[in-house]
């Protein structure tokens, strides 16, 4: 556990602004987490892999990596909002700018978004808390207002 914590801290040096969740489980049972990750992988393959690649490594200059970045490991509300609303401004990660727009994914259900974000936050070397459908629902409701 010490090792895991140190690992996460080391990898998030570039995201000082945000507190990173180091807790690795939520109220989900571990089997619930596993099932969510498995469902999330399918969502990832359909909607995300094309740009973010099989290994979450992204494409230089175009599509950002999902590996240990502040966008993925940081504030869950912002992450959920990025998925629902899409992203149009370039972002910079480790001295590389990524330019391609990400379309909104509001057509995905709360469960699908929760699953895919849980998958991404627990794959590609990431380790962070699960995202729940209730959290997605809350953010979606705020965006609609």
């Amino acid at each position: 556990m010490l090792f895991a914590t140190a690992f996460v801290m080391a990898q998030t040096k570039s995201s000082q602004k945000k507190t990173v969740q180091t807790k690795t489980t939520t109220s989900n049972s571990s089997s619930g987490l596993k099932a969510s990750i498995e469902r999330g992988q399918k969502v990832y393959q359909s909607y995300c892999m094309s740009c973010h690649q099989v290994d979450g490594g992204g494409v230089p200059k175009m599509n950002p990596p999902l590996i240990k970045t502040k966008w993925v490991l940081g504030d869950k509300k912002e992450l959920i909002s990025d998925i629902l609303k899409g992203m149009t401004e370039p972002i910079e990660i480790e001295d590389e700018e990524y330019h391609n727009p990400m379309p909104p994914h509001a057509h995905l259900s709360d469960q699908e978004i929760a699953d895919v974000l849980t998958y991404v936050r627990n794959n590609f070397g990431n380790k962070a808390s699960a995202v729940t459908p209730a959290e997605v629902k809350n953010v979606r409701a705020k965006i609609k207002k």
Partner: protein
Amino acid sequence: MLFVAFCISIGVFASDTTKVVKQALHPDADNAGLTLPKGFGAIVMIDSVGRNRHIAVNPNGDIYIKLERLRNGKGIVVLREDASGKATEVTGFGNYGGTGIAFKNGFLYASSDNDVYRYKLNDRNEVIDGEKPERIITGLINRRQHESKSITLDNAGNIYVNIGAYSNSCQIQDRANGSMGKDPCPILDSAGGIWQFKVDKLDQSYGEGIRYCTGTRNIVGLDWNNDVNQLYAMQHGRDDLYRMFPKYFDSADNAELPAEEFLLIKKGSNFGWPYCYFDQRQDKKVLAPEYGGDGKQVGRCEAMDRPLIGFPGHWAPNGLLFYTGTMFPEKYRHGAFIAFHGSWNRAPLRQAGYNVVFVPMKDGKPSGQWEVFADGFAGVETIKSTRDAKHRPCGLAQGKDGSLLISDSVKGTVYKIIYTGK
């Protein structure tokens, strides 16, 4: 005799008064990791130049590389080749990143993602003042998608500039699942084509330029073919047929379609983007799903211009060069080399491209099957993700001796391909 042989072997170090004897070029061990046809060899001229884009050679043989972004404050790097085919960096200039670079009639031309500049050469073919170019074209649209402005020149005082479309397929919501296309596509007013400008007028923009062709999504590799005095280019086809329209396409279709197109461009050509794409399996332009197509319907695409060749999807052709040298055997003369930067949009299938292809040509038309000429740049057997590739071919140029020079955008390597006959 022994003494003479000794002199020849150290010819490169000879003093001013001794005639420098040209050494035979020797390929690197294992051809620098590349696979080439029999009789060819590869030399790594230099590594770590920067984020290499296009490459050009002046009449002296010096090599000029346009960098995507500045390195040590310079956007153009000048290399000098020694007798063994290795190169050293001699100077650099230009405070802008970009892609295009070309020599023509006593000038060097280079582009940023917005502008085109030219630099006068002295009688030794060197840039006189790297800090004071003339800006000949300015204000070209740059919205960070397909933003590079690649260039080529004809023999009548014109320069051709690609302006890529800042979109995948002109959808109402760019790259969104099922989003339909804008009709007509408003992007085509200032992008999605090649514009022609004069080489010697300052600060030209859309008002002064001529729309030379339209319906091209993005072009990075383009070249003027002096055999037939015509413009040729390689179009990057659109992405994500499967992700956005799964009812018509599966992931295997998506990996192969649409074609990357080898184009002969005439004034007024229309290649159909965003309404149409070329399906190399059906050998025709078909209607894009954003405009009501289902992968088979042709509709308005009947009227669009065809490519000369449809290459496999997503290989990303970034360099095009017509070979005019004599170092390579007869087969290669007048033919086209194409540098494919390599794919990202083939997932979940493995990525592909990352090679240099040869197309035999006669009188400006393909005269035989295309073939992979140089491969192995990626340095790994299977490329699952784009970033697995250790090198990606981007620009092409012909060395003074008729060798083929290839720039790599990842590690900043420059390769020299030679023919030894062995």
